[in-house]
């Protein structure tokens, strides 16, 4: 009996040792296994409106890269296929944190790409440092997230706050009659508040007087009070710094309450906003990171991926930020010439990376230099109106529908 107990314990112990010793996933950095990018997508939850088609898009991206054999790795002397490990973070930061921990320790992915939204990117980023896995985040645009001394974190949000409305304010220098006043309406969110903070200073510096600034919470549905203040201030420009969803009743009620201005500018003029407010959106201006047709590096690849996954840039305006995180990581591996996290990290620190909307260069914190085009809704269609050399339509100023 004693012998059989000992034998049983020995077998059990052996199994435990074997299980612990066996890697749960492919060996990190191997030339014989695909390179794995670990990522989460907000497929459910509040952020899913912005990203619910990105799983298919991510798979289409891998297919496109693998068509030519994969990513060229010099140390392997061959192209190594790309594979994604994708989880749904449910738009919940705590879930995202647990999933990135799992990808680091159980799935043993080679690199991290793409978490989006500052609310998720903020808590997730330190995991990359803890496990020393380079991470190129997607749409995480809050500069302070990058300024925490993290060594393995980069990001490709489009556009970044200091360049968000750069082209719009550039355009304002060229319109007639010149705007003299601006009213900022801001969604209570870190990125949107940062945009208002930055661009209200720029407006003043450009000689456009800020005649009012109001912030509203995500839950606010009745904007009558806020709009009454805007009407009383009579600004030339109303600058709405908000995500698309929370501003739907604002735009509708501005129309209902007959607000007049030379232009209503919206930082997230999206297909979703258009579908919800319909004709109310006419004449409004906004930003778009990139649009099919603008020729740039990897533009064809991005167009094919979007087409295969039925993703439209106007509906999913953060798509370029997400895809650029993949593109940057692919290029970093090629530059490093090895599936080696430290070498890839070094490549990310010093490289210039190609993307459809122009080169991406990171500052010392891993924050990029990405900008956006100025668009205007004209007869129910999106027209790029600035810069003039790539414009698909002429800016209509002042906007007749808001007169």
């Amino acid at each position, binding site marked *: 009996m004693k012998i059989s107990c000992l034998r049983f314990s020995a077998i059990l112990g052996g199994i435990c040792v074997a299980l612990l010793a066996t890697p749960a996933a492919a060996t990190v950095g191997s030339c014989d296994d695909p390179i794995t990018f670990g990522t989460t997508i907000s497929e*459910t*939850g*509040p952020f*899913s*409106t912005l990203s*619910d088609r990105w799983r298919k898009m991510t798979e289409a991206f891998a297919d496109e890269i693998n068509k030519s054999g994969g990513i060229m790795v010099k140390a392997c002397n061959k192209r190594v296929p790309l594979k994604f490990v994708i989880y749904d973070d449910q738009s919940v930061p705590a879930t995202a944190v647990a999933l990135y921990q799992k990808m680091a320790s159980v799935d043993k992915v080679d690199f991290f790409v793409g978490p989006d939204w500052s609310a998720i990117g903020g808590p997730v980023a330190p995991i990359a440092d803890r496990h020393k896995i380079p991470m190129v985040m997607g749409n995480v645009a809050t500069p302070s997230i990058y300024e925490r001394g993290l060594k393995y974190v980069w990001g490709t949000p489009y556009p970044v706050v200091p360049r968000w409305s750069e082209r719009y304010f550039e355009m304002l220098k060229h319109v007639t009659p010149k705007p003299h006043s601006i009213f900022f309406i801001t969604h*209570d969110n870190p990125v949107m508040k940062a945009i208002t903070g930055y661009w209200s200073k720029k407006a003043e510096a450009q000689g456009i007087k800020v005649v009012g600034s*109001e*912030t*509203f*919470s995500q*839950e*606010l*549905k*009745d*904007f*009558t*009070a*806020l709009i*009454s*203040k805007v009407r*009383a201030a009579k600004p030339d420009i109303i600058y709405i710094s908000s995500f698309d*969803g929370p501003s*739907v*009743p604002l735009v*509708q*009620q501005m129309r*209902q*309450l*007959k607000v007049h201005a030379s232009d209503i500018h919206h930082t997230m003029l999206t297909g*979703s906003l258009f*579908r*919800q*407010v*319909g004709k*109310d959106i006419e004449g409004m201006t906004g930003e778009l990171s990139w649009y099919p047709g603008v020729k740039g590096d990897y533009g064809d690849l991005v167009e094919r991926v979007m087409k295969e996954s039925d993703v439209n840039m106007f509906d999913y305006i953060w798509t370029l930020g997400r895809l650029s995180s993949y593109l940057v990581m692919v290029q970093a591996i090629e530059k490093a010439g090895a599936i080696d996290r430290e070498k890839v990290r070094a490549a990310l620190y010093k490289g210039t990376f190609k993307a459809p909307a122009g080169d991406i260069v990171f500052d010392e914190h891993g924050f990029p230099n990405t900008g956006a085009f100025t668009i205007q809704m004209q007869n129910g269609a999106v027209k790029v109106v600035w810069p003039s050399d790539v414009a698909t339509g002429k800016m209509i100023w002042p906007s007749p529908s808001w007169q």
Partner: protein
Amino acid sequence: MTIDTFVQVCIGGLLIGGLYALVAFGLSLIYGVVRVLNFAHGTLLAVSGTAASIMFAAWQLHPALIAVVLVPVVFAFGYGFYSILLQPLARRSPFEATVGTVLVTVGALLILSDLTAKFAGATQRNIPLRFHTIEVGNIVFSTTQLYILLGIAALSIAMHLMLKRTWFGRAIRAVTQDSIGAQLCGVRSERLKAMTFAFGSSAAAVAGVLYVMSFPVDPYMGFGLTVKAFTIIVVGGIGNLPGALIAGTLLGVAEGLTGLFWKPEWASAISVILLLLILVAFPAGFAKRRR
């Protein structure tokens, strides 16, 4: 600030406050009779609003017709939900029953939200109906708002009459006051509870159709509305329709005036502040419950 601005803000407050009151009244009725705090109540509004928006987009149906279609569906859902998931909990100990109902309704909130997001998308939706606007001086209000206000008033009167003049209404009030006494008088208490749960759910469905005509809905907005409805119930009194209307309107106008005189970002928080202030000043709420 001019008087026009003040009136304008009050009109907006009346509209949203009336919608809050409708949501609260269904919830209040359910709690009064069934003694279940239905955390999924606001989510029913969100789901109904989403369904209404989809029906409008697909077939351009008139919102009143959409409400006529949705009410029996949501009624049946409410009846089934109570009978299958909540009624069995009544056989448990009071503690288990209370915890169980919270778990079931919170679970329903999460499942309904995610299912709606899965099948209808998580994007906000509304019914983009635009009737013409009426201008009186600087005050502008749309006839859409007017129709919604009329809808709220008509529904409130109908529900009030139903509670006061019909057997069903009298039975509801009897069970609210004394469940065992009502049973002794021939009221089939369990069936009535299921009917009340279904009726309260239908009220949320109608509120959803009215809500989505003026404000966007999304699958995840329900809990915030439920919290506001709880506030209104506490202030207005359980099962008290006029009390709910007064409290709802007060809340809506208070939110608007907070935005006007202070900051719009504080408008949502005002419900909690208001609740605390009123509970200090009127511990029994605006309407004392009759026993």
